Structures are given as C-alpha cells and as structure tokens.
C-alpha cells in the first residue's frame, strides 16, 4: 500500500496510554548483591576454605573454653605426676590414649628391680638385642614392656606424695613375676656386622607382674581401689615435666599464640593503612621518602630485633631497680614478642594500600568528589580506602599464621624473653627436649600448630580468591 504523504490523520487516532498509571522504576525482584555478599558467594564455592574456616573457628573456640573443660587449672601441678601419657577413658577401651606407655627393649634382668615399671601387666616378646661397641658385640634378651603409668603413679607414688607416709615396706620382693612360655621357636638372622648366619632358639613369653595382696590391702585402707583404673583422674593430653595438665596448657598456649597473632594483626593493619594511605595519596616527595624508609626497615630481620629485645629485657630484669617498663614487660612478655614482629610486618599492608591509592586516586569519581569540595580526609577514607578493603582483609588474615610461626620459632630458639609464657612454641620446645621419652608432649602442640597453619593458609587463599577473582590460581 502506497504511503500517502498528504493524508491527514485525525487526532482521535491518537490516545494516551498509561495516562492513569504512574510509571516508576520497577523494584528488582532479586536482592542486590554487594561487594561483601559477592565475595561471600565466591568464598562458599571453595569447599576447602570453608572447611578450613570451621576448623579455625573450632580451634579458636577451644582456645577460649578449652582450659576450663577439665578440673585442672593452669596453675595445677603435681610433681609426682610428671610425664604421664595421655589417657581418655572413653577411648581407652579401643587401645588409644589408654595411659599406657611402652618401654622399648628393657633388659629382662632389670625388670624386677625397676621401680618405674611397677604396675605392670603386660605382653612382651623377648628378642635379641645386639649392641656393638668397638669390636665387642653383646647380645642380651630384652622385652618391650607396656606399662600402665597411671596405675603405677596413683597406686604407688601418689600415696607417698599425698599421704606423706612412706610405703617403705614395698620392695621388689613384694611383687612377683610370672612368665608363661607360650611357644618356642627357632629363628635365624644375618648378623648385621659380621654377616654370618646366626641361628637361635627363643621363646615367646607372656610376662605378668602383679602386686602382692599386701599392697592392695594397704591401698584399700586408704580408700583407693587399684583394680579399676577408670577411677583415677585422667589427663587427656597427658602431663609435662612439672606435672602440669597438658590439655589445659596446650589450649592456653594456643590462646597465647592466637593473641600474639591478633595483636600483631591489629597494629599491622592500623599502621599499614595509615602509612600506605599517606604515601599513596600524597605521592611526590613524601612518597619517595616514605618508600626509602620502608626499604631500610624491611631489611631488618626479626632475628636482630628479637635478639636486641631479649638482651634488653633480660638486662632490665637483672638490674637492681627495674624500670616500670621492664616490670610491665616481665609480667606481659607476649608484648615483647609482638613488638619484635610488628617492626616489619606492617610493610606488606602499607604496600598494598599504597598501590590501591595509586590505582584509584586519579579516577573520575574521586575527581568529581574533589570538584564538589571534598577534603583530603573525606577522599581518603570515604572514596579511596574502601577500594582497598579486600587486600587489607586478606593480608591481615595471612599475617596471623606468619606471626604464630615466628613466635614458635623464637620460642624454639630460646630467643624469647626469659619469663613464664605458655605458647605453642614454648610447649613444642619443652617437648622437643624429651622427644624420645615423652613424645606426647610434642605431638599435641605440633598437631595444633599444623592444623592452625594449614587452615589459616587455606582460609586466607580462599578469601583472596573471593575478594579478587582475577588473582585466582596465581600463587
């Protein structure tokens, strides 16, 4: 149909639509997704990080309430209960944490006279142990002996310790040794030194040692039933060399370590943000000077600061009239460690904040705000700094494990201030000294610090990926 230019269109062909309605922007049916919510969604997708987060929460929770979960306080100690292995009554029936300890390769002949091995039950298979000294070889029959240390200590030493009455009548004659030969066998082995074939016949023994009735009755008079080990108090993580409950101490130590990490993080973030903002926002000469200063400070190893701090703290303690500062730090030695760590830790945060300022300070929205008359302070805190919040959060989370690690290293090297500080590091180094005889003293703190480190790193990586998806995969 041809279009007629001259055709007139009457006005009634036109009519208003929507004249009765007010047209407004429709409300979004979906909820708005902000920066943090967006990060949270991405974080949730990372299963490992979520699990790590819950492990962290658990450890922090235990660091808070752990020391109160059993009847022993942080100051409770009983020197007669030193180096007890872990015992958890619930698990004891499964053979884990049953308060028993295996003495490997105890010479058979010494068994009867060893007081430490009193309340003994228990299976042992004698075997030949060859020791070579120079050209001389000695061979002796030894057994591995499993000892219920709890029964031993509570049945025997504790009465002495608590009752004050010495059970001097108890000598080695008061208990008897019963060996039952189960089977005899002949076995052969190649001698490790001479290389010759040695054939020997040996027997598998079941060794049972028990106390005489006399001893039981003596105990019964004092109201202790030795037959049922469950009646004794149990130390879930065992005890240490001074008879402190390790469960209480390990969680207190975790608390100290986390607190140090937290203090370091607090100072790091506040100093780093202020420093980075000033350096990045103002730029120019201020920036150059501040950068040179940072470069010099970042060359200071924590070893140097910690050594100086330790020497000054020790000298302060030795002096006849200690200054108030020396007294304060003697009472709160963790602040000394925190100070040593803080000296260089803020540099990373300052650097990332500075970068963000350089990236955003020339953007249009900042210019717009400046044109409208916003002051420097408003520009820094309201407009630019919020853009740096992702790197700041990620960085501050990752500072905590590195602070905990350094604190433990300091404790291990005995570089910490000499004072009574219970941290994961001091527990580890304490346990290290008796690694072969009381391995539980190392294993529990070692496990907790490893769990802390792994979950902090996983959590931190997850956060970094969540806040800055473009960095994913770049380690």
């Amino acid at each position, binding site marked *: 149909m041809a279009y007629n230019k001259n055709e007139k269109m009457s006005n009634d062909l036109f009519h208003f639509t929507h004249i009765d309605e007010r047209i407004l922007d429709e409300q979004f049916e979906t909820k708005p997704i902000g920066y943090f919510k967006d990060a949270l969604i991405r974080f949730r997708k990372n299963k490992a990080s979520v699990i790590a987060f819950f492990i962290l929460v658990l450890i922090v929770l235990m660091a808070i309430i752990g020391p109160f979960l059993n009847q022993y306080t942080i100051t409770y100690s009983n020197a007669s209960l030193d180096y007890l292995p872990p015992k958890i009554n619930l698990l004891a029936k499964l053979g884990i944490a049953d308060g028993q300890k295996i003495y490997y390769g105890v010479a058979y002949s010494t068994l009867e006279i060893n007081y430490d091995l009193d309340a003994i039950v228990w299976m042992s298979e004698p075997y030949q142990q060859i020791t070579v000294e120079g050209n001389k070889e000695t061979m002796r029959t030894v057994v591995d002996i499993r000892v219920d240390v709890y029964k031993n200590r509570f049945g025997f030493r504790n009465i002495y310790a608590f009752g004050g009455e010495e059970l001097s009548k108890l000598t080695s004659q008061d208990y008897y040794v019963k060996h039952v030969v189960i089977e005899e066998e002949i076995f052969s082995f190649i001698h490790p030194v001479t290389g010759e074939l040695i054939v020997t016949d040996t027997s598998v023994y079941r060794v049972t040692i028990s106390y005489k009735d006399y001893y039981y009755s003596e105990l019964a008079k004092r109201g202790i039933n030795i037959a049922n080990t469950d009646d004794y108090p149990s130390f879930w993580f065992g005890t240490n060399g001074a008879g402190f409950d390790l469960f209480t101490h390990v969680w207190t130590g975790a608390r100290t370590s986390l607190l140090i990490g937290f203090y370091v993080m607090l100072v790091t973030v506040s100093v780093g943000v202020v420093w980075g903002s000033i350096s990045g926002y103002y730029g120019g000469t201020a920036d150059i000077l501040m950068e040179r200063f940072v*470069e010099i400070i970042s*060359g*200071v*190893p924590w070893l140097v600061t910690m050594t100086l701090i330790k*020497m000054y703290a020790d000298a302060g303690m030795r002096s006849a009239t200690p200054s108030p500062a020396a007294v304060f730090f003697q009472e709160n030695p963790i602040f000394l460690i925190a100070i040593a760590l803080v000296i260089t830790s803020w540099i990373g945060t300052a650097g990332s904040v500075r970068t963000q300022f350089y990236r955003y300070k020339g953007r249009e929205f900042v210019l717009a705000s400046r044109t409208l008359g916003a002051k420097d302070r408003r520009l820094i805190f309201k407009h630019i700094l919020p853009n740096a919040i992702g790197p700041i959060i990620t960085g501050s989370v990752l500072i905590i494990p590195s602070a905990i690690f350094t604190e433990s290293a300091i404790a291990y*090297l005995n570089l910490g201030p000499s004072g009574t500080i219970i941290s994961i590091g001091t527990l580890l180094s304490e346990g290290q000294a008796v*690694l072969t005889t009381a391995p539980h003293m190392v294993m529990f703190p070692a496990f907790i610090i490893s769990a802390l480190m792994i979950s902090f790193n996983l959590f931190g990586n997850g956060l970094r990926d969540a806040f800055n998806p473009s960095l994913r995969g770049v*380690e």
Partner: protein
Amino acid sequence: MLRYIIKRVLLASLTITIILSITFILVKKLPQVVPIELLMEDGFDVEIWKAKYGWDQPIMAQYALWVRNVIVDWDWGISMHMSPGNEAFSVLSRNLPTTMRINIFSFLVAMPLGFLFGIVAALKKNKWPDYLISFFVIIFISIPSFVVVTLLMYFPAYKWGWFPIQFPPSNVSTAAMARGMVLPVLALAFGPIASLTRYTRAELTEVLTSEFLLLARTKGLNKRQTVLRHALRNSMVPLIGIVIGNLVGIIGGSLIIEQIYGVNGVGSVFLLAIQLLDYNVIMVSLAFYTSIGLIASLIVDLSYGIVDPRIRMGARK
C-alpha cells in the same frame, strides 16, 4: 639497567650500614661483661685490645674504632666467652662449611623435585596427580619446618632406627656422616620443594594456555615437543629468581633445624653467643644474617631483569 643495579646496591649497603650501626650502639649500651681477669690469666695482652677497640672510651668513639677496624682490617672484634681471645669472625666462619654442606645438599634435592612435581601437576591439571601434589604442597607449605624435623626425628630416627637422632660430630666416617645428614637435608628441603612446585605449576599452567603454544601445535608439533621446547623454557623465567634466592639462602641455613638436630653450624654459634652474652660474636652473626637476607633479595630482583630483558626493573613510566 646499570643505573638500577648501582642504585639497588647502594641502597642495600646503606641499609646494612644503618642496621648494623644501630645494633652496635644498642648492644654497647647494654651492661658489658668483659672478663679482663680471665683473659689476662689466659695470657692475652688485654692492654692492646683496650687501645684497639677503645673499651674504656665513650660509645661513639668505640663505634668509630669499630667501623675503622671492620673496613680496614676486616676485624669484627674478639670473642670473649665462647672461645676467648679468638677473632669473632673466625669463630663464626669455622662453622660455615657444615651449614653450607647441609644446605647445598638440600638445594640439590629440592630443586629437581620441585620442578618435577610442578611440571607433573601443571600437565595433569585437575586430574588426580594434580590434586595429590596440590594437597601435599599446601601441607608442606603450611607445616613449620620444626614440626617436620621433630616428626622425622621421632619416627624414622628414633622409632625405626634408620638415622641417628643427633647430628654426628665431624670426626665420624663418611658413611655415618651421610646417614646423619639425611634428616636435616630432608627437613630443609620440604619447604622449598613445596613452594617451587607451587610456582612452577602456576607459571606453567599460564604458559600452557597461551596462544603461541596453540600456534606451535597447529604448525604440527606434538604435545611433548611443545611442552619441552616452548612451554617449559618460557615458564622458567620467573622461577630463576626463586632458584637463585634459594641458592643464596644456602649460606644462611636454617637456625631452627640446626638447633633442634644439634648441627654445629652457624646458627649454633649465634645461639650460644646469645646465651653467653658474647657481644662481638652476636654482632658478627647479626651482620651475617642481615647481609644474607639483603643480598638474596637484591640478587633475586636483579636476576629478573637480566634473565628476561622485557622486564625493566625500576623503569620510569
């Protein structure tokens, strides 16, 4: 580039000077323990030292003498408690070979393994070898080396008797020494293996997805050829820095492992000096560790620019 190198070297020297000066003055301000009687009993002429180091002069004068002695004679003062009368520097340097030996071996173990695992993980990305390797990487990056060495000392050394539980003294046979070095070498290697694996994997995966590799494949190279000739070479560039950084770290060694395993290296000298308050040995040790750290970071930064000319360190806009 030359300008940049000079600038960095000058800055590093300035940093070392400032740190050491402050440290020296702070150490001197501590109550000094100079066992003059003991030294005289041992037949040393204390008066000469007094004049040379200025023991009876104010701190700033001592500082000037110290700077002069170090720069002109390379004399870091004498040890007073650890090995009285000997030069502090020689006390430290005679234990250096032990530390270096352990660290060189751990470097030789860690580098090939780190590359190998990293390459495997990158080539098998998102398959089970990658998951397995990544799992161990996160574990060994996180677990502190002192926990690793403790576990190694308890299980393989004590329980199973494979290795000695203490580092052997230097007069034992080569075989015994080799056995004794296994644990510290392993403990020192785990961390570098894990971090090198992580970096290699990240770099190689990035290169593997790049377009020049696709081009190489379309030109008819098989996968093996593209990986070996194109991907690996290009992914090595950023890794050189890490390798060189580790190499410098060899001299420093690990204080903690030495302390725990009883290795008589540089670290044990330093820790003993702190216990005995042998200030000159402490000073020379701190100088040693500070310079190692600074030199390592300096070389790493410079190596990037030398290996890959596209990277212009410190270039203006």
